[in-house]
Structure formats: structure tokens, C-alpha cells
């Protein structure tokens, strides 16, 4: 009987894990919460609006098409889209609780899935540091600007600025201009020296990262052709407007990302698109019991195995490495999860080393620096859901002499809202110095990984493993 492998997340890592596992003889179930494959990296138009020219919006599109066709055609791979994992149980075999149907709808079909091996490939979302006005409509995460441009052909504004940190800002600017928006500038917080140190040290290593070098070169070329200013050591430190964004305030930053007084200038815009890096989506691996490291990624060994037997992780949840790392990690995870021989992986292991190097460079060049706090004001909202301002967060932490995250969340409501601290969790931790009491008490821990309606929860079957469809 063949091995069963459950892959959660159908972005680059999950797709490549599913294919590798099937190649190694496993029966694979591939889940994604979205209604299409490809994850955020290959976010694309819905079938009703597809285009043969869509490849222009993407890097590695032919590879995606091959993977997509393969998982669709392979009888050993079952694909479940609109499959939202909302809980993971570990009282017996690791069991994944799923609701299948339109996002957040009542009455979605409940499933309880277990398998011989599970591969988590849940990816990351962009992290946006708070700044005054970041809660005004018209301010978007950079990822939103890109997802809407690639997935819906929507330009989030006509005159936009892109700001934050990291190489991701460049494709976002490109997506915006391709959707017809005017991009007034891209403002990268890292200063030239930092960026250069990160990217230029041992440049020969970059050659090993197959797609990254040419991809970035392509974006820079696009920038030059479009004459979009690309400023290093600068940031959007405020968005202003009546009810929506009308102006962005741009300032130069020092090496610690603190705004340099007197350098502020204001530009009229109708969209501000900001990302300061990525936050891995860890709630499912944490719920499964996987250990995370001090840098808050899932710990994996050379085979992409987590600390939990039979559970693997691949892609951004093991370190922000981009698509090359995700693809190769997915292949290793899928192959090994299916019981495949390690000797078949030599080339992949080598590629992963090169991809890891890229990840380290990105962090060295663009990692968040503490000076950004200087652009906060007392009334700057830190927790968007509960509208908790920075001043209250700071004052309550002081009044309670509290250094634990759990108490701070409950006394201020920061992170208690419906996004469950996905937006503000790490920011609150940084701003207050509050430490999680344990690895199981970080802002990444969410026993309910997605909302479930009370009636649907009440209606769940009561068999020992709970679900009606345990594999």
C-alpha cells in the first residue's frame, strides 16, 4: 500500500512537494485555502478571465503551468481548493480539520484529514510596520497591491508610492505600473551601504540561485525604463487624508531606520503600498507541535523534517528564501515524506544551499531596524482590529510592569481582534519587549487557525476522530 501524504498550501513549495511525493509513489492530497493554485507568488487571474499573455505578469510562469497541469492530471494527487484548515489536533495522529467551500461561508463541508506524512507549506504574508495613517483606506500592504494587480487586474490607485524594505518592493512597483498606475517612487528603508553589504558579499553565490539574479535584474531594468525613482534609506513615515489617503510623507532614514529630521517631504498620492518584510504563517505547524527556532521559523533538518515525526515543512515558514528555496524545499519535503531515497536529492540539497544564501542576504540587507519606532506617535494605531494606539500600549505595559505577551494582549486588547495578531503580533512584541511565556505562547499561536461559525462547530460529527472523512 502506498504512503499517504497531505500537503497544506499550494504555492511553489506545496506544489513542488505534491509532485515530488507523487513521483516517489505516494497518494497525495493537496489543500489550499484559496480557490486557485499557485499561492501568492503565482497569484493569477480566475479561469473566467484567463489570458495567454498572463505569463508577462509572472516569473517562472511556464514552471507554474507545468506544475498545475501535473497536479490536475496525476491520479495520485487529489487537489482540494477553498479548503480552509481551521484546527490541527494532536491527541491522536496529527489530524487536520478543514472546511471546504466559499471563504467564510456557513455550512461548508467539514473534513478531518490524517495521513502517513504531512507537509506544511503555508507560506508567509507581508509584514507592515505601523505608521501614522496606515489605517487610512488607500494604504495597502504591498502584497495587496500585487495580488489585486495580478489576480484581478485592479490598480489600487492611480498615483502610488511603494515603500518598506526588501527586494519584494520592485515586483510590486512593476505590477502597479503594469496595471496602469503611476508609481511616484519606491522607498527602501535599507541604506545603500547595508544593501550593498547584503547583496554584494560573495556575488558568485548568487549565480547558484537560478532565478533570483535575472529576476531582480529584470525589475531594475524595468525601473530604469520607467524612470521610477528607487530611493534607498527612505520611508513613508505618514499617510494623510480625510477618510482616505491623499498624501504620503516621505523621509530619509538613518542607518537604524529612524527618520532624519528635516528631510520630510509630502507627495500627493491616492495609494500607499507598504511592506517591511514577511511574517511566516506558523499557526498550523505550531498547532501540530512543530518546534520553532529563535528566529521564529519552523525548525527543519536536512530532509525538511520538523520536530514532530511524520510532519515536514517547506518554503517561507522555514525561512524567507523566495521561490527558489521554496521549490527545492518542497521537492525535498515531498520526496522524503513519501519515503523517497535521500540519494536522489543531491542536486536539490546543493540548490537549497544557494537559496539559503539568498535568504541570509535579504535579511542582512533589509531586516527591520529598531529606529522605525521614531515615526510612531502616541495616537498611531498599532493593532488595526482593536484600534489600540501606541501610547496606550506603552503606558499600560508600564503601569502593569508587565513583560509577558499574554497579559499585555488581555490588558490592552492588542492582538485580540479578528485577525488574531497576524498584523500586529510581532510589532507588539517588539514595541513592548514583551516575551512569550513559552514557545506555545507567541503571537504566532492560534489554536483556531481560521474563524468557524458556531453552528458549524456545533454540527461537527462526534466520532472519535471527529470527522467523516478520515483517510
Amino acid at each position: 500500500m502506498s504512503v499517504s501524504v497531505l500537503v497544506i498550501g499550494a504555492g511553489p513549495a506545496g506544489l513542488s512537494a505534491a509532485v515530488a511525493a507523487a513521483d516517489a509513489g505516494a497518494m497525495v492530497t493537496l489543500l489550499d485555502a484559496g480557490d486557485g493554485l499557485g499561492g501568492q507568488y503565482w497569484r493569477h487571474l480566475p479561469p473566467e478571465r484567463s489570458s495567454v499573455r498572463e505569463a508577462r505578469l509572472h516569473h517562472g510562469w511556464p514552471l507554474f503551468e507545468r506544475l498545475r497541469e501535473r497536479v490536475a492530471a496525476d491520479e495520485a494527487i487529489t487537489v482540494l481548493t477553498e479548503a480552509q484548515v481551521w484546527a490541527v489536533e494532536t491527541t491522536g495522529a496529527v489530524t487536520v480539520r478543514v472546511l471546504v467551500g466559499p471563504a467564510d461561508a456557513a455550512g461548508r463541508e467539514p473534513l478531518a484529514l490524517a495521513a502517513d506524512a504531512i507537509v506544511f507549506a503555508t507560506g508567509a504574508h507581508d509584514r507592515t510596520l505601523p505608521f501614522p495613517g496606515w489605517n487610512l483606506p488607500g494604504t495597502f500592504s504591498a502584497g495587496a497591491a500585487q495580488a489585486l494587480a495580478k489576480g484581478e487586474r485592479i490598480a489600487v490607485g492611480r498615483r502610488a508610492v511603494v515603500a518598506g524594505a526588501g527586494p519584494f518592493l520592485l515586483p510590486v512597483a512593476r505590477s502597479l505600473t503594469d496595471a496602469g498606475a503611476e508609481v511616484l517612487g519606491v522607498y527602501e528603508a535599507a541604506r545603500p551601504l547595508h544593501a550593498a553589504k547584503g547583496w554584494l558579499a560573495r556575488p558568485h553565490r548568487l549565480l547558484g540561485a537560478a532565478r533570483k539574479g535575472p529576476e531582480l535584474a529584470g525589475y531594475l531594468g524595468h525601473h530604469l525604463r520607467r524612470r521610477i525613482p528607487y530611493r534607498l534609506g527612505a520611508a513613508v513615515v505618514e499617510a494623510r487624508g480625510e477618510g482616505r489617503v491623499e498624501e504620503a510623507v516621505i523621509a530619509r532614514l538613518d542607518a537604524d531606520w529612524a527618520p532624519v529630521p528635516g528631510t520630510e517631504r509630502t507627495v500627493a498620492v491616492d495609494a500607499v503600498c507598504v511592506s517591511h518584510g514577511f511574517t511566516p504563517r506558523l499557526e498550523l505547524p505550531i498547532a501540530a507541535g512543530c518546534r520553532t527556532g529563535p528566529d521564529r521559523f519552523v525548525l527543519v533538518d536536512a530532509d525538511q523534517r520538523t520536530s514532530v515525526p511524520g510532519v515536514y515543512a517547506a518554503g517561507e515558514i522555514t525561512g524567507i528564501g523566495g521561490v527558489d528555496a521554496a521549490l527545492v524545499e518542497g521537492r525535498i519535503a515531498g520526496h522524503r515524506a513519501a519515503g523517497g531515497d535521500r540519494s536522489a536529492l543531491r542536486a536539490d540539497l546543493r540548490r537549497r544551499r544557494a537559496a539559503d544564501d539568498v535568504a541570509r542576504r535579504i535579511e542582512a540587507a533589509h531586516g527591520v531596524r529598531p529606529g522605525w519606532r521614531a515615526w510612531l506617535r502616541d495616537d498611531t494605531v498599532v493593532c488595526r482590529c482593536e484600534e489600540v494606539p501606541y501610547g496606550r500600549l506603552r503606558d499600560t505595559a508600564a503601569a502593569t510592569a508587565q513583560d509577558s505577551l499574554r497579559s499585555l494582549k488581555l490588558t490592552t486588547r492588542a492582538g485580540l481582534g479578528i485577525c488574531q495578531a497576524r498584523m500586529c503580533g510581532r510589532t507588539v512584541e517588539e514595541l513592548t519587549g514583551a516575551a512569550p511565556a513559552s514557545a506555545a505562547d507567541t503571537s504566532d499561536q492560534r489554536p483556531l487557525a481560521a474563524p468557524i461559525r458556531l453552528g458549524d462547530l456545533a454540527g461537527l460529527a462526534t466520532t472519535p476522530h471527529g470527522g467523516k472523512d478520515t483517510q
Partner: protein
Amino acid sequence: MSELVPRAADPIRPAAASPLRITVDGATLEGLQGQSIAGVLLAHGRTAWRTTVAGHPRGAFCGIGVCFDCVATVNGESDVRTCMRRARDGDAVETQDDGTSNDGTEPGERP
């Protein structure tokens, strides 16, 4: 203002999708098959549709189902992430105002 890339001007030339209609707080909005509900709203230049407890407007922020800023009541079901939900012809969308309570009392207040 947010907008849909006009199909004729779009070098990508997405396939011509059939139209659909949804209502937002009773007003009809035209959209295309395959658009998310947030996509329909943004295509009409609407960047905000929720009101927070403090009375501030919100719309889409993360665009990928993480921030929950864009939630609305869809066909009577509250808190639907409109960036994740494909619009269907006839969907009735009601915007959410977190500052109001439907019996007029403050939370915890006794009758």
C-alpha cells in the same frame, strides 16, 4: 482611486468575462465573473466599506485574507473576507459598522 484596468488597454487582455450584479447596502454594483467582492468594490473606486468601533473607514488592506479589514456581511452571513470571496451574481452585501449595536444599548448595559 482604485480601478479595474480597462480591458482594451490591458496588454494582458484577460478573457471577456460575463457580467454579474451584486448589491451593496441595497445599491446595485456591476462586476465580472471571477472578481472577488472586494475586487468589485475596488473596481468601482470604493476603497472603504467597513466602519470601525472608533468610527473610522476601512476597506481592503492585505488583499490575501490575513488582516480581516475587508469583512462584510454577505447574504446574511457576517464577517466574510471580501478579498477571499468570489462575487456571485445576486450576492447581497451589507457593510459592517462595528460601532453600532442593533438594540441601541452599549455592550454590558442592563435593560
